[in-house]
Each structure stands twice: as C-alpha cells, then as structure tokens.
C-alpha cells in the first residue's frame, strides 16, 4: 500500500499556506532511488496544531530521570507536572542486591506545589525546606529537583538550593533546569538530563564490577518489564549487565556506569548524548542495538558477540538464539496466521517507530507510515548528517557539554574490549559501532515518513491508506478506534508487556492478534441497519 503525490497533496490542502509550506518539509514519501532524502525535524511545532509532542520537563523528569528508583524526585512547581508524571509511564522497578525495597521511591510523587505567593516572592525557601523534610522522612541516597515552567521565569536558582542542601545533608542533590518551554519537545529534556547525569553522577562510584563481558544498556526504560527480558537474554549469553539507563536502575548503579566495556544503545534519541560523551571521556565504544523483534534481537546479539570477538561468547550466543528461536517461532507462527499481510502505522516517540518495524515483519506485517514525535534528522537519515544540522535559536538554548578524555580512566576502545588494535579496526569495518543508520533505511518505496505528526494528518492518512493497525499513544488510540481501526499504545503497551526480546515478541504478537480479531469489530453495524438498503453499498 503506497501513497501517491496527489493523495499527499490532498492531505495538505486544508492547511493555510504557511502551515502547508512548513509541514511539507516534515513529510516524505520514501524513494530508495534517492541517495539521501532529507526531512525537517526537531523544529518548532506551529502554534494551534494538535501535535503529539510534550515538553522538556516530560523528557527530563518523565523519561530519563524519573525511573531512577532510589532517588526522591522533587518537582519544583505547581502541582500538575509532578502529578501527570506520577506512575503513568510504566517504567517498572523492583528491589535488587544493591537496593532494598525501603530505598525504592518509584511509586511516590513529590511536588513543592507552588502557590501564588511562591510565584511572587520566589520558591527557593519552600524547595529547601521540602528537601530537608523528605531527606529526614525517607533517607534517600540522592535527591533530584526538576524545574517546571514558572521556575525559570521567576528566577529561582535551583542549582544554588541543591548545592546548599548537599552541604546540609551530605548526599547529592541534582538540579535539572528542564522548564517545559525549553527546546521544541521532550528531546530538549533528554539532553538536559543526559548532561547532568554525565557531569555529576557517572564515574563517581568505586564499585568493582566482575565479569568478562560487562555492558551497559542505555536508553532502555523497562516499560512493561522490557529490560528484565533483555537482561535475561544477555545474561544467558554470558554478559554482565552493569547498569540500565534508566530502566529499573539506581543512583548507585549509575555512578558506576563507567565500569562497562561496551555501551549498547536501545533508544538512540534519548540517550545518544551519554553514549557519545562516555566515548569521549572514557573511550567506551557504543553499539546501536534493537531488541524489539526476534530477528532484530538475534542480529543485535550477534553484533555484540562479534564486538567482543570471543569464541565461547559467540558460540553461547548462537546457542541462545537457536534455543529461543525454536521455542518462540511456533507460537509466533500461530499469530502470524492472523497478522500476515496486514499493514500498520507507527507514530511514536523517537525510536519505537523504527524498532517495531522489525517485530511487525516477524509477524508478516509492514509499517507503511512511520514517524517520530521528537526525533532529530539523524534518527531518520542516519548519524552521518549530524555535522550538517544547523543549530537554531531553540537548540542553542540547551547547553552542550564539552568533555575531554579522563586522564586516569580513558582507554582506547580496543582496550575496553580487550582486542588487539588491528582486530578492532577490522571489526569497525563490519559492525556499525558508534553509528545509527536511522529509520529511513528500513522504509520501503512509497511508504510515508512523517515528523511531528498531528491530528489532521493522522485522520487523513488513515482515511487514505486504511491501515489494519495503528501504533501510537493513548491520545490517538480512541480516535483511531472510532474510525474502526484497531489501535495499540506503543508508549504504554496497553498495560501489557514485555514486548522486547523473545518472550516479548510472543506477548506483542498475542496482543496484536487480539486487537485485530476481537469479536466486537464485527458488531459495529446494528442488525437493524444491516438489512436496510444503504445508499452507497446498494447503488
């Protein structure tokens, strides 16, 4: 199912001229004969357009910082921002060897609940007092402060409050200036969170990490238990997972993030800054992986094993892949009967619209419209375009950290991997270390790539292309249902999961098959209408 230029133009017709001109640059029809199809991304949403995007606060507190389970996260602002980011993202956490249950604060919500007098006279004192009280009540290992819009406007110096609190309590208090108006989407917040974790937390631990193949999983948030499934597989292959950033992770674990030999990156958008900065500071190589879909998982595992180049690891990896694939494939085949040949749209955050194409293909489905909410051009076109991306007024507001190699801890990548230099160089020819090719490469001719998709475009693309399945967020879900199209939330997995790895593929396949076949889809037309002549169908 492909779209043609005329249909494309028709979708854009109702727009005022300025909007049409703008939106055209954010949409493309995939044409593999063109060497590099450029798309505009990470630029402002036009006011009034019903976008799916959130804000910098959502990206910082909601996505990256919030899941750190053993910190008390205080949201400095009026009540709303803390409230909406409380328990709504499904980043699961549990006690482990380093973190007992009484040190887990994930199910709590902390807000300074700023009142008008705080806006007028400043909220610093209130924030300081709240830190004192929560430290006294909960004894957390560390505290975070996340700023909301008015904080920046009234000029509360949360950095100074944090510093003073650190001195009073002897624990780290991190402050994140992630006011919602910064940048153009959640993406700004990811960057702000990455910067602070890199600057103040990573590398401050002194734990000894045992294991031959020690890895970190970056950009994996354990939605619906995804990272537990990924960790299970990696451990069976023989890896030691040092830390997940930030799914089911602890402040303690993040301090020792530098102790791994390889960073694997699941969500490129939200965490590529740390991957890159760790490469600069510690020399740690990183590899873009995808654990969504059984073939994608197998490929990621094979590439990881190749990177370490250890024969026993490669053999164990193949054993795990063979065993798991043999276990999972017959189950998937059952669901494949329902899914085969069906089409889907995927309009999600900044990575999933790419990752899930692989899982859909395992089920015989194709994603014909794919888009990101808050991606940058490199997430579509590949990292090679990064040097050509011009920074604008909005991106300039997000500070860039300029790091240099750590005098003590920097080691060259091949030393991290325990490989001779020549073998590492040869490896780089075959395995895309430190690279992400972007979404476009996986899109077929005639499919649509769309950046910062909005309500009008969702509605019109569905009417034009009539997909069998719509993968997006909860704000779109019920709109799409009303149009008679099954829809699954790919942010919250409709409260199911995991969807990652081998076990996740089964859960996803079952959920999709259920969504496509639930008997009520056949009951939309009431029986008293079925037998009455209806204009179009009867004519």
């Amino acid at each position, binding site marked *: 199912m492909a779209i043609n230029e005329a249909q494309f133009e028709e979708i854009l017709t*109702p727009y005022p001229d300025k909007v049409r001109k703008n939106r055209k640059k954010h949409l493309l029809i995939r044409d593999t004969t063109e060497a590099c199809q450029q798309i505009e991304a990470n630029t402002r949403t036009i006011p*009034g357009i019903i976008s799916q995007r959130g804000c*910098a606060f959502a990206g910082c507190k909601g996505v990256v910082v919030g899941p750190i389970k053993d910190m008390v996260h205080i949201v400095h602002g009026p*009540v709303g921002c803390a409230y909406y980011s409380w328990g709504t993202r499904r980043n699961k956490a549990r006690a482990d060897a380093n973190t007992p249950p009484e040190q887990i604060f994930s199910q709590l*919500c902390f807000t300074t609940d700023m009142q008008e007098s705080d806006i007028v006279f400043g909220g610093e004192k209130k924030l300081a007092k709240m830190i004192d009280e929560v430290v006294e009540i909960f004894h957390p290992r560390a505290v975070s402060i996340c700023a909301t819009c008015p904080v920046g406007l009234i000029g509360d110096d949360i950095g100074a409050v944090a510093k003073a609190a650190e001195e009073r309590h002897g624990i780290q208090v991190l402050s994140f200036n992630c006011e919602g108006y910064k940048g153009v989407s959640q993406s700004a917040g990811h960057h702000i969170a990455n910067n602070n974790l890199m600057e103040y937390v990573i590398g401050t631990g002194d734990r000894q990490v045992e294991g031959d193949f020690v890895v970190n999983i970056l950009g994996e948030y354990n939605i619906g238990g995804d990272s537990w499934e990924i960790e299970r597989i990696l451990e069976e292959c023989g890896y030691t997972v040092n830390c997940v950033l930030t799914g089911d992770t602890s402040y303690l674990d993040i301090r020792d993030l530098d102790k791994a030999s390889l960073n694997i990156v699941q969500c490129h958008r939200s965490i590529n800054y740390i991957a890159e900065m760790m490469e600069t500071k510690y020399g740690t190589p990183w590899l873009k992986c995808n654990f969504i879909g059984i073939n994608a998982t197998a490929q990621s595992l094979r590439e990881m094993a190749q990177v370490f180049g250890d024969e026993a690891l490669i053999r164990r990896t193949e054993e795990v892949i063979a065993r798991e694939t043999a276990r999972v494939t017959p189950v998937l085949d059952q669901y494949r009967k329902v899914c085969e040949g069906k089409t889907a749209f995927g309009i999600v955050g900044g990575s999933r619209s790419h990752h899930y194409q692989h899982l859909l293909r395992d089920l015989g489905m194709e994603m014909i419209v794919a888009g990101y909410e808050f991606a940058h051009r490199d997430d579509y076109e590949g990292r090679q375009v990064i040097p050509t991306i011009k920074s604008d007024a909005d991106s300039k507001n997000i500070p860039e950290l300029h790091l240099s190699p750590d005098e003590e801890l920097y080691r060259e990548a091949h030393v991290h991997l325990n490989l001779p230099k020549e073998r590492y160089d040869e490896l780089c020819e075959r395995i895309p270390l430190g690279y992400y090719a972007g979404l476009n490469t996986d899109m077929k001719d005639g499919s649509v790539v769309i950046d910062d998709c909005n309500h009008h475009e969702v509605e019109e693309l569905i009417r034009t292309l009539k997909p069998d399945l719509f993968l997006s967020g909860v704000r779109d879900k019920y709109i799409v249902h009303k149009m008679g199209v099954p829809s699954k939330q790919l942010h919250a997995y409709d409260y199911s999961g995991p969807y990652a790895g081998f076990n996740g593929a089964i859960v996803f396949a079952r959920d999709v098959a259920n969504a496509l076949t639930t008997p009520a889809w056949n009951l939309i037309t009431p029986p008293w209408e079925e037998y009455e002549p209806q204009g179009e169908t009867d004519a």
Partner: protein
Amino acid sequence: MLDCMPTGTVEHTVGKINPAKTCQPMGAMYAALGIHGCLPHSHGSQGCCAYHRMHLTRHFRDPVLASSSSFTEGASVFGGAANLKTSIKNVFEIYRPDVIAVHTTCLSETIGDDIPNIIRESEIPEGKTVIHANTPSYQGSHITGFANMCRAMVSYIAEADMPIKKPQVNILPGFVNPGDMRELRRLADVLGVPAILFPDTSNVLDTPLTSRYEMYPAGGATVEEIRDSGNSRLTLALGTWASGSAGALLQEKCGVPCIPLTLPIGLKATDDFVMALKSGFGATVPDSLAIERGQVVDTLIDTHFHYQGKRVAIFGDPDTVIALVEFTLTMGMKPVYVLTGTPGSRFETEVRQLLDEAGIEDARVRAEGDLFELQQWIREDPVDLMLGTSYGKYIARAEDVPLVRVGFPILDRAVHPLMPIVGYRGCLRLIEQISNALLERRDRDSLDEDYELVL
C-alpha cells in the same frame, strides 16, 4: 508495597507527597469539552496540553482533542500573544470548531499575557466564538479550573434577552462523568422540566463506535443553549466548588436565581435535587421515580448489615467527597478520614457539620491534604474501606484495605464514566460496589468453616 514509608509521626509541612489534586488547566479543559463543537486551547507549552489530554483520555477512554500555543523560550520571554493569535487562526482554518475555549497555564499566567486583549486582536471568523478562563496552576486545583471555565461560559455567552423567564432550568452538573450528566438530564426529563445542562460531556466523552469518526461529536451544550441559560427561571448549581461561581454569575449577570445544592450523589442529595425541581416548577414526581427511590430504601434496609458501622476513608474532589460523606452516613457507615487535595477551609467546616449531625466525633477532616497524610492516618488507626480515586490503590495494597473507586480519575478500571453514581440509580450502584468490596474481603479472610454460600 511502599516499604519506604516512615513509621511514627514525621514532619511534613511543605509541598505535597502523593497529591490529591492536580492543576487548574486540566479541569478547564474538561469543562470546555462539554460545549458542543468546542476545541479547548491550552495557552502554554506543549507539555501541558499533552499531559491534560493524556490524563483525561485515560479516565474516559475516549478521544480528547485540544490544541496548544506551543510556547518556546522566545515566547516565554517576549509574551505569548503572537502564539495565541496564530493558534486561533490555524485552529479555525484547520480544525473548524464552533468555539475555541482558551485556558491559561502557569507559564502564561506568570508572564502575564492579557488574554482578552489578545482575543480581541485575533482573526475570528463570522459566527465563531472564542472564550477564555484564567486558570493559574498555582491556585486552587483542577476543580477551580473547571469552575473558572464554567464561569467563562456564563460571562462570555449567557444572555438575558427575554422579558419573562422561561420555564426551564439550568443544571450546572459539576465535575462528574458523562454518565452522570446523562442521568441528571434523564431525571429532569422524568420530572418534565426542560433543562439546559452545561457543561455536558455526554455524547462527547461516552460516544458510540460507529466507524464514522467525528472530531466534534453530537453532544455538548450548544452556544445557543448556553446563551439561552440567561433566560431560565432557575439554576441548580450542583456542587458549590465546581458550579457555585458560574451559578452566582448567572444570577448577577442575567438575574437567574441560583440554588446551590450538594452533588446529587446519595439518597438525601438526590431528594434535594428532585425537590428543587418540584418546588421550582411545580413538577409532579412520577410513580416511576418514586419506585426508583423506594428501591434504594429497600436495598439500604436489606443490606445494611454488609456495611453499617464500618470505618471508611473518603478522599477526592470536594463536591464528590462531601456528597459521599453524606451518603455513607445514610448507609450507617463511619467516615473517619475525609480528605480533599483542593484548598479551602470551607470543606472542613461542611464535612464537620455533617459528621457532627451524625454524632461522629473522632474523624479527621482535611482540605488541601495529600495521600501521604491519609496513609499515615490509616497506619495509625486502620479503616475497613477506602472510597476514592485510583491513586488510593497503593495505600489500599500497602495497608490491605479494600478500595472502591469513585470520582476522578479512575485510571485502572473501565466503564465507570458511563455508569452514573448520581440519582437514585447511582445510589444502587454505590451500595452494590461498597457491599461487594466488603463481602469480597470477608470471603477472602474467612476460615474454611466460616466461608458461606449465603451472605
């Protein structure tokens, strides 16, 4: 569950831990959805609009559309006038609503954007309406925001343009579900009183699936209806927190007398609602309604031993909680902890009065409280039952107390927005839920020899 909670008394005096309220703009967005053909507009950064739509969608499981001014740092420094004007132009051209209902956020309020002026300077197509409410997130709660948007409907739209008032009633339903609004209209219909209900989210947030998607569903109070509310003979403002200020403004602006009533949740509050319509319009109460009421009394008598004397903690929005306190007292229960996140000491006074009348002395009542505090109370002296929102589920599990989900939001159970808890039928639903929760607990906890077929 919640192993991190402290034991013993602690000092918690600033901020909120596990808040029992959210911010004004979300309430304003919900109210605006109760106008037919209306697109709510959030004048702030995108995150606000995204969060509010998410939250409302999760409660109602139906589409919630709203647009945003998409502030960036530049707009935050130089003011959001250009963003709002561009929004109004684009929304009318692309999404074609009849009405845009603008609400502010803490961002635009802190900047001090002059919304009425910006609206005046905007391009508004002939026949279209733009209204606004100031909803600073740092005052009140989502209930305040709901009330402010209801008030804006009156101040912008309602007109008294007839010499004699019409024999029709305005019903301001308060922050309740579409199923409740539908039921309130049915009660007015049964009593034969023509009613203007606004906001009205029935047929907006409880729409049928037909495969024919309409961005603006059939429901919602039309601009014409809201305008005509100025000509009504009487206004019933249900729940003073959500509806009081709009009702008062209708009286002031259009001379429509307003009777503030408790939300008609429970037998007595429903009686008051019915009596207000009867005495205001000389309506005859039909046998069918008398039967509905009689069924409630019959059920209360027949099942009282399931719940009478049980200690209950009630939390949520003030109008809902006050009505639930009254009804649980009617049921012979003991509301020992009563808490709302919305600020206002009047809440405490009103609840105290109800409790005093019932002779309940050792209750704790709190306005502007949080769920951390509620959990501390329950730990100190347990209750048999909690009545409140989904956010109570962590306490329910940690303290092993059954939770009956009532109010807003309910994020982990379905169908509730369609099932009324107002009116006599609503009483039956509440009695059933409360009884069942307590009986499930009895069954779960009973020894084999005490596990009985008939209860």
